[in-house]
């Protein structure tokens, strides 16, 4: 992915001076619809959310007046802030484990399974043929007190009582999200390994590197952009995860996204809900820009 991006960048590198003046017009015409889309359906609504968060807009008409109270309450040690950090922790665990678990899969498909490569790739995507909801229900069947795992443990006599933290817990949320995101994670890593120049590996072995050394000094560094992209693919969406904790999280596995949904949908506290949403948005935007910079730096380093 990143390698492709680099190539595009180099071909498009010397623009401007020699380009025909019409190119600018065409570019503008092509960019206008998506930009308009972004402004109308993203930037303006985000602006609304911000206005709700300072009570310039209010759920019940007649109660609006500018105030930063909701922001102060939130940042001043509210349970929601603690919940946010908990969500970040959970997302970090999920992202790291998913990347580590997906790397060997992507490695195998890209570099070892030569002929069956695309069949295997399809197999990785196969879970997407089943609805997300059904897959979560399947996890409930597996993890429940009378589920597959607990039945086995009790049948074999390993345990007398079912292991109750398997379902409706942080563990259940982390496990199911890792499962869900592994295909998403495997793809960018696969793409970066796939475009790896094999001659570099040959050169490494010619120079007497063992397979492990070749992996550590050639393959791994060259796949880092893919790994980072994969990490972002998981980390960013899971911070605001809502549906999975709702279904398998129970009391302990609640995440920040659930709190936001409750504020808007259940408590009708749009003021506080907007504060939580806008805060999440800002944090994600900051993280994205940091990661993006990191990706660029890596690109220069490997290129």
């Amino acid at each position, binding site marked *: 992915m990143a390698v492709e991006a680099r190539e595009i960048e180099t071909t498009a590198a010397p623009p401007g001076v020699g380009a025909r003046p019409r190119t600018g017009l065409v570019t503008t015409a092509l960019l206008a619809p998506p930009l308009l889309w972004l402004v109308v359906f993203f930037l303006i609504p985000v602006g609304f959310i911000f206005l709700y968060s300072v009570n310039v807009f209010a759920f019940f008409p*007649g109660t609006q007046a500018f105030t930063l109270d909701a922001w102060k309450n939130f940042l001043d040690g509210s349970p929601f802030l603690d*919940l946010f950090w908990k969500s970040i922790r959970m997302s970090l665990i999920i992202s790291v484990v998913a990347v580590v678990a997906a790397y060997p899969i992507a490695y195998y498909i890209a570099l070892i399974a030569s002929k069956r490569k695309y069949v295997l790739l399809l197999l990785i995507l196969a879970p997407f043929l089943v609805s997300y909801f059904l897959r979560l229900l399947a996890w409930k069947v597996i993890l429940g007190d*009378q589920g597959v795992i607990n039945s086995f443990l009790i049948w074999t006599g390993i345990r007398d009582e079912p292991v109750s933290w398997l379902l*409706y817990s942080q563990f259940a949320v982390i496990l199911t999200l890792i499962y869900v995101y592994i295909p998403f994670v495997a793809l960018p890593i696969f793409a970066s390994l796939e475009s790896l120049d094999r001659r570099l590996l040959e050169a490494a072995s010619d120079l007497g590197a063992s397979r492990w050394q070749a992996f550590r000094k050639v393959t791994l560094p060259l796949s880092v952009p893919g790994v980072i992209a994969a990490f972002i693919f998981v980390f960013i969406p899971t911070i605001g995860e809502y549906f999975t904790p709702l279904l398998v999280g129970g*009391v302990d596995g609640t995440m920040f996204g659930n709190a936001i949904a409750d504020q808007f949908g*259940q*408590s*009708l506290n749009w003021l506080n809900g907007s504060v939580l949403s806008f805060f999440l948005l800002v944090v994600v935007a900051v993280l994205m820009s940091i990661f993006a910079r990191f990706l660029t730096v890596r690109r220069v380093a490997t290129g």
Partner: protein
Amino acid sequence: MSTEHEERNQRRLGRDDFLKLGAVTVGTGVLAACGAEGAPEPAAAPTGEDEPERPPIESEPGNLDVFEWAGYEYPAYGGKNGVLKPYVDQRGKPKFTFLTSDDQALGKVRAGYRPDMVHPCVDYVGNWIEMGVVQPWDTSLITNFPDLEAPLVQGGQVDGQQYFLPADWGFSSPLYRSDEVEPDGEESWALFYDDRYEGKISWWDSPLENFVIWGYVNGIENPWEMTDEQLDEARDFLMSKKHLCRNFWSSQTDLDADIAAGNIWIAYAWAGSYVAAKDAGLDVVYSEPKEGRLGWNCGFVLMADTENFRHAHEFVDTWSSVESAEWIINNYAYGHANTSVNLANVPEDYVAVFHLDDPEARQEPNAHYARPVSTERRAAYAQRWDEVKAA
């Protein structure tokens, strides 16, 4: 009998007070709108006098859009050839969207969703009127209206207008597995806080009820009107006990599945869950806590800007039939506003457990129907419930 009347009057007084409050709020809202835009909006206020002439049903668009609880949609409700069939045959299948709680429904409509009719509960009618999105029913268009139980019908009237048409009612009470759970002494809501059953309990994920239950357990006189200090105390207590819960349920289907799968032994439950657990072959008790069961009554409100005025009336008329009443008792074990059912046609077990033959059992002090709570107080409860969940 006389105490029963007194109780009813007390309840109605409370509601009237709140509705006055609601009317004032709506009034100020309209005034504010006038001030802002310079033009009055007559649609927001219920006038009653210059009712517009309604077009005949043929010129309405049809495709009735019903904002419903899951399990009340055609054909799940009544079956494919069941009680809703007459309406479906004549007017086509309505579109059903599902609500998971009254608060969620209010929020969704506030956010701009506009169905033709909604199925909220009576304690929220004031909030719906306050939001200015509903209009009264024309009861003369509903042939089954005279068969609906009078106290429930009166509970849905505001300023002499039938804003809320009662449909179903029932209890909320602790449901527990009698083969796994041994209540400590007398039956009580305090079973929800019993340390012996850590990880096997499920409270309802609702901003009000968990505080109300705490209030009844702790002898608060009116748990629907607790002070901020009482609510804070309740919040701290609930936070200290929430680790006992496996989850806070929000969908009855999920709860029923969890009870059947043995994940949950004790739950805040409606009658439907009792029936589902019985059907799953479990030994369950639908408790009669010493503090009294909670009660609920839900029904239909008509959206102010619906283009399906007559369709909506025909639909609620079909819904209010005695066949519908018999079906809901037999299948969900809920009560129905149409009380002309012959109880010989429904299971004896349900009549006994849900006191279908005993109206007094669903009056104070035996049972506590949900009471209207002003938007401001509701927010105070909700904020603390969110803190319990986030902690």
